[in-house]
């Protein structure tokens, strides 16, 4: 996988900051992504900018589990039951799977407004004509509660309810929970369930390892009167401190899920009773069970502005009129047009579908 830590200065940047990345074919959306994210494996993996703490998380988990499986499991498997390393193994794989899913997914980033859209909004806001600054909030009624939608100056959009702008990643994220440095990514609508399952399974794994390491110590030192394994001390230390923080965090997020709130809303006390008797959460489905089901088993939305499929061979882009005219007039032909995140790119893609896809299979968007 080629790494690309580039972030373009703006949505219409024509020059990539890393010339080595430039390809003659039309650039993919992740290459012109305006936020401060890192992309790997041709845009399939999306992370936040600072990934140092994520590597620490990986090291801690791999080290502790590695020590457990190497030094404790053989003893436990032979003296107690081989089910212990089996269950441990399943838990470990689940934890790693959920960690990677939470870290590498798009959290639900809202694409920035196209220039046309931004201009349209500006016109609407300035249409009052008065000398006062234009309103930068909109009020909507959601299930009986008044919710204020704020205007984001970076993304030039009115943020949907529950969305928030992450200053670290420089993106507006839907149903923004928080930016987690341990996971190296924002936690939002698309990866909240993976984050929750990660901390939940990690709690179980930590408790599991802690319990069986203690069992190992007791059995080997007290019962069999053997010397304790040195690695045991490290494992016990890591697990002991992790348990308090991770189990606590799991408990907190279980509460948030059951009341259908985000960390952001809870910290601000948006739906707290302290603000007033009539203040309630308009997003809650009513019961704890329905809130949990919705958060964990609800439909998973795909990425907004998905990348076009890679397997479809990119067709020869139809020559624009101006190119033909230029050649007719004897002018130098312009460089091949690069589709950018501009006003036309989405429509151009669609229309390419109509051109290419007329008669052929489906409405698969093709990158022109």
């Amino acid at each position, binding site marked *: 996988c080629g790494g690309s830590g580039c972030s373009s200065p703006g949505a*219409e940047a*024509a020059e990539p900051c890393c010339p080595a990345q430039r390809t003659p074919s039309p650039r993919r959306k992740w290459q012109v992504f305006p936020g401060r994210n890192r992309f790997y494996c041709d845009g399939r993996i999306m992370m936040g900018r600072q990934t140092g703490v994520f590597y620490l998380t990986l090291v801690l988990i791999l080290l502790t589990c590695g020590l457990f499986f190497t030094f404790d499991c053989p003893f436990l498997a032979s003296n107690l039951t081989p089910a212990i390393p089996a269950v441990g193994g399943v838990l470990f*794989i*689940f934890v790693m*799977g*959920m960690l990677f*899913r939470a870290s590498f997914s798009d959290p639900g980033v*809202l*694409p920035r407004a*196209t220039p*046309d*859209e931004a201009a349209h909004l500006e016109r609407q806001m300035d249409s009052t004509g008065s000398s006062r600054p234009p309103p930068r909030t909109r009020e*909507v009624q*959601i*299930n009986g509660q008044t*919710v204020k939608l704020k205007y984001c100056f970076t993304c030039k959009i009115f943020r*949907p*309810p*529950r969305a928030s702008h992450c200053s670290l990643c420089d993106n507006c994220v839907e*149903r923004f929970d928080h930016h987690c440095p341990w996971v190296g990514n924002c936690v939002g609508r698309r990866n909240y369930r*993976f984050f929750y399952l990660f901390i939940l399974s990690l709690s179980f794994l930590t408790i599991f390892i802690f319990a069986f390491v203690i069992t190992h110590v007791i059995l080997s030192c007290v019962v069999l009167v053997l010397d304790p394994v040195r690695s045991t001390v490290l494992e016990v230390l890591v697990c002991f401190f992790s348990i308090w923080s991770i189990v606590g965090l799991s408990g907190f997020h279980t509460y948030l899920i059951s009341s259908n709130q985000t960390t952001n809303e809870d910290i601000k006390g948006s739906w707290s009773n302290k603000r007033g008797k009539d203040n309630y959460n*308009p997003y809650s489905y009513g019961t704890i069970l329905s809130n949990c*089901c*919705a958060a*964990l*088993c*609800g*439909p*998973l*939305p*795909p990425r*907004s*502005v998905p990348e076009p499929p890679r397997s479809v061979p990119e067709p020869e*882009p*139809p020559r*624009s*009129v*101006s190119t033909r*005219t*230029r050649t007719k*007039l004897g002018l130098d032909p*312009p460089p091949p*047009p690069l*589709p*950018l995140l*501009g*006003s*036309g790119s*989405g*429509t*151009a*893609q*669609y*229309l390419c*579908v*109509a*051109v290419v896809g*007329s008669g052929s299979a*489906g*409405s698969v968007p093709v990158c022109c």
Partner: protein
Amino acid sequence: MVQDWRKLEVVDRCVADSYETPTMAETHSLQDLQQPAVSSKVFVQRDYSSGTICKFQTKFPSELESRVDKQQFEETIQTLNNLYAEAEKLGGKSYLEGCLACLTAYTIFLCMETHYEKVLKKIARYIKDQNEKIYAPRGLLLTDPIERGLRVVEITIFEDRSIGSGR
């Protein structure tokens, strides 16, 4: 019909390529070939009255009054809203899919599409169909909202050259 699409695509690419500002000669050639130019864009915003579910306002924009029938437009938006509601529906089927996915550590989505993705494809086909049948003959173009992060339905209004209003 395909010919008309090609013309629209070609013009739109000219609009997208910011470095290409047509010269007088090119504009003249464009006129000769009767290329429709983008006159303006209308944005249909989201309707958040029912919560964060994807729903667009059915209010008819005034800029489209001369171009398309109000009933037709409202029907298109309402159908889109219904399709998005189907994608985001919470019920037995979506819970089953979610539980199965969780049990397989979400690896099942390597081989199968999510329900949401299937409905999004349906929506893309519907929009293409509506554009071909209703909006393109009237010089309008609906952009799939997924291209804008499900924030707006962008409707591009092309200049009506059939009346002979030249530049």
